[in-house]
């Protein structure tokens, strides 16, 4: 497992190359890149920020869960923080596995789950201002449901 947060460019080629092993038949890579527009509005750049220690712990937890859930051999997960220009990579996931179905499913589950649970936020800068991106709602398990009983 290789989990990291980068403040500069994610070294995608090196991470992918380091993940290869003779028993793998399939490597699936997901790169999330900064788009030049959001709903048709021209994006100038993005600022990503995180609750960094918690984000890293959550990322490690998700990778451990994916390794077990999908029985893949190894996973690398990298997220970048700070200012990103259009075309730059904000997140990289590499899943190596004997079989391709598990590699695809594990990779997809990781990005979908990361986007809902890992405490990272992005601010989108447009020509006429900046807004925090709408996040996806938290899964029910992480929200504040439950009684407001005092534990005194």
């Amino acid at each position: 497992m290789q989990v990291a947060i980068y403040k500069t460019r994610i070294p995608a080629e090196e991470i992918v190359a380091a993940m290869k092993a003779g028993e793998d038949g399939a490597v699936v890579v997901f790169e999330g890149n900064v788009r030049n527009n959001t709903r048709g509005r021209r994006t100038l750049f993005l600022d990503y920020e995180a609750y960094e220690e918690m984000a890293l712990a959550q990322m490690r937890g998700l990778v451990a869960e994916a390794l077990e859930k999908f029985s893949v051999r190894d996973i690398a997960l990298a997220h970048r923080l700070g200012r990103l220009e259009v075309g730059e990579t904000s997140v990289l996931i590499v899943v190596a596995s004997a079989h391709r179905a598990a590699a695809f499913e594990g990779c997809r589950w990781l990005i979908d789950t990361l986007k809902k649970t890992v405490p990272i936020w992005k601010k989108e800068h447009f020509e006429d201002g900046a807004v925090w991106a709408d996040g996806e709602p938290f899964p029910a398990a992480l929200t504040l449901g439950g009684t407001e009983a005092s534990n005194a």
Partner: protein
Amino acid sequence: MQVRVLYFGVLKDLFHAESEDLEMPVGSTVGSLLKSFQERAPERGGLWSSLAVAVNQEYAKKDCALREGDHVALLPPVSGGGGESQRQSQGSSRSSG
């Protein structure tokens, strides 16, 4: 007792701070802390109900008891990653131009 409240994303802009030390009565919970914030900025109702809360870096429920020195993070819906899903949320879109 004193807890440290950490602000992220839109909350950091709202309070112009990254964190704040708050005096809370002994026996306070995540829920009672959140209620005090709702009273501070009731006009942001939708925001308060969309939050998750982490106590010492673990997601916590409303009935989680707080202790002296806890780090309580108020977390707006997260938006890390990349590769947007097709389904776009409504809401914060402003007209461009």
